[in-house]
């Protein structure tokens, strides 16, 4: 029964996400672009969510996203690689960097880890500014080409983005990556890996007492987190067709945290729901832009006071077959 419900919910969601939304916004490229951005931001937030899941607050996700963005831009513009290779390359490079950074940093616990990740975004920005032979410094890398076609044995798998409506193309690519990312996250959380991650969150010493290689698992979690950031960053930069040191800032890093908080840390879909709700509400209230940091801070405080488990912890009386509640029963 639960399985049927989950399947129904998933199909309904996919129908809305992949058919209804693009159809509704078919003549509004700007809005479609905003929705695409929401997708990719939710993918990047999902990495932060996973770090919460092992009990770490990652305040440096913007830095990893920036690494992914620059990696893709450099692979495409300097090495002339295709976007698709660069996308995978960017994910790979971000993961390698996260492992190198994570090995020493993940030994720090609690607030110490957060404090040090706080500086990661800034470090990435400074690196982007100063390694100008690679990154063009503050000028950034401009005029990135659109993704080309993918053909296998003469059969066009993905068309050249320049030859179709690129807003639709980016929307579907963003949605595809996001679905893939959240499906992977769902698997992680609902497999034995999820049990191990939850055991780290609750007591690392107890986990290591029965043989869990805690340092290794922490690095694996951070690598997955960074993979999401790297892929998301590479996609975002390609969509913007440019990357600057300020493409992902420290502020973005804190917004990713807030998206997770808002959606809820207890459910896999927390990062998705949180990002869409908050990012889209803001887009609708354009006039409030200058107050964004203030409003976000107030939301953060309000959340901690009144809704510590996020939006997904609210159970309205008539709740459809939508959100699978499985992992909420065992937080």
């Amino acid at each position, binding site marked *: 029964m639960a399985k049927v419900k989950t399947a129904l919910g998933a199909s309904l969601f996919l129908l809305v996400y992949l058919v209804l939304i693009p159809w509704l916004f078919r003549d509004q490229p700007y809005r479609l672009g905003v929705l695409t951005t929401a997708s990719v931001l939710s993918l990047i937030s999902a990495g932060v969510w996973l770090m919460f899941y092992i009990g770490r607050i990652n305040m440096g996700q913007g830095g990893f996203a920036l690494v992914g963005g620059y990696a893709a831009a450099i692979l495409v513009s300097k090495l002339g690689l295709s976007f698709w290779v660069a996308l995978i390359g960017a994910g790979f490079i971000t993961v390698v960097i996260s492992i190198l950074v994570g090995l020493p940093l993940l030994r720090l616990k609690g607030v110490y880890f957060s404090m040090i990740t706080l500086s990661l975004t800034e470090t990435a920005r400074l690196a982007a500014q100063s390694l100008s032979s690679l990154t063009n410094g503050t000028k950034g890398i401009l005029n990135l080409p659109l993704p080309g076609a993918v053909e296998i044995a003469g059969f066009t798998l993905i068309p050249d983005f320049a030859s179709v409506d690129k807003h639709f193309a980016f929307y579907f690519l963003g949605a595809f990556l996001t679905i893939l990312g959240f499906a*992977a996250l769902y698997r992680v959380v609902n497999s*034995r890996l999820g049990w*191990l991650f939850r*055991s780290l969150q609750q*007591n690392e010493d107890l*986990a290591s*007492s*029965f043989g*869990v290689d805690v340092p290794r698992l922490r690095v694996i979690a951070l690598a997955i987190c960074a993979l999401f950031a790297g892929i998301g960053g590479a996609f975002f930069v390609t969509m913007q067709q440019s990357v600057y040191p300020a493409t992902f800032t420290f502020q973005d890093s804190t917004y990713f945290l807030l998206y997770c908080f808002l959606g809820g840390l207890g459910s896999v879909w927390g990062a998705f729901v949180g990002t869409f709700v908050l990012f889209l509400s803001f887009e609708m209230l354009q006039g409030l832009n200058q107050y964004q940091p203030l409003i976000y801070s107030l939301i953060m405080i309000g959340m901690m006071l009144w809704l510590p488990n996020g939006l997904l912890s609210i159970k309205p009386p008539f709740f459809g077959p939508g959100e699978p509640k499985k992992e909420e029963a*065992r937080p």
Partner: protein
Amino acid sequence: MTPMPMTSMPLMEVKNLTKRFGGLAAVNDVTFAVAEGEILSVIGPNGAGKSTLFKLASSFLAATSGKVFFKGEDITSQSPHIAARKGIVRTFQETTIFRNMTALDNVVVAHHLRSRASLPGFFFGTKTAREDEGRFRESASEILDYLGLGDVKDMVASTLPHGHLRALGIAIGMAAEPQLLLLDEPFAGMNSEETAQAIRMVRGIRDRGVTIILVEHDMSAVMNISDRIVVLNFGKKIAEGTPAEIQNDEVVIEAYLGREDESEDRTCTLKP
């Protein structure tokens, strides 16, 4: 099952082990050995260094000097998960469990070392991974039944009473199938009836082939359960012997009586 026969080579050997915290030698030049199938107790007044000794033996702390051998192999100051892999598992003095998981899930997770699937195997839910999961659930149920927790399997751990939590801590330790189980004050906070039951369980675990070292303040329990006793005071080993020998040891009596003014009756009575 019958008790494992004693063999000539000790299962664990601790040689001149020392741990300093700044100027304080919490464990000071301690040497002893435990034979396979034994129940060895480590006793001593509060702050004597018993828990520190356990942390050194299970690689939760790095030793300042000295060595720990397990089955003849030097395992001093490795990582805790390596010690667990070799077969050394400790429980914690403060009740330590996964509070937000059910009792059953606590023990299922603790089967980690017995899983045959790799991390990608878990992710993709391979047949091996799924089979393991089933086996772990069965085995965890069995362990919980054995420790008298069968009725509270599905309760979230944080809602269990203290006595059950101590037992759950031991269940987690058993799940890893250790060869050497280090129990830090397993009977703390139990009444005499619960203690008597817990003593039977610990004996039973030994009879399943697990060697046990335990730290305990309940002297009647210690005298009842131990094959041998090691006594620590201010980080140093001051005596070692059978319960009868320890009860009549002048130095030990001195060490305990010397603290009578602290009015901690549990550290003052040596006789059961």
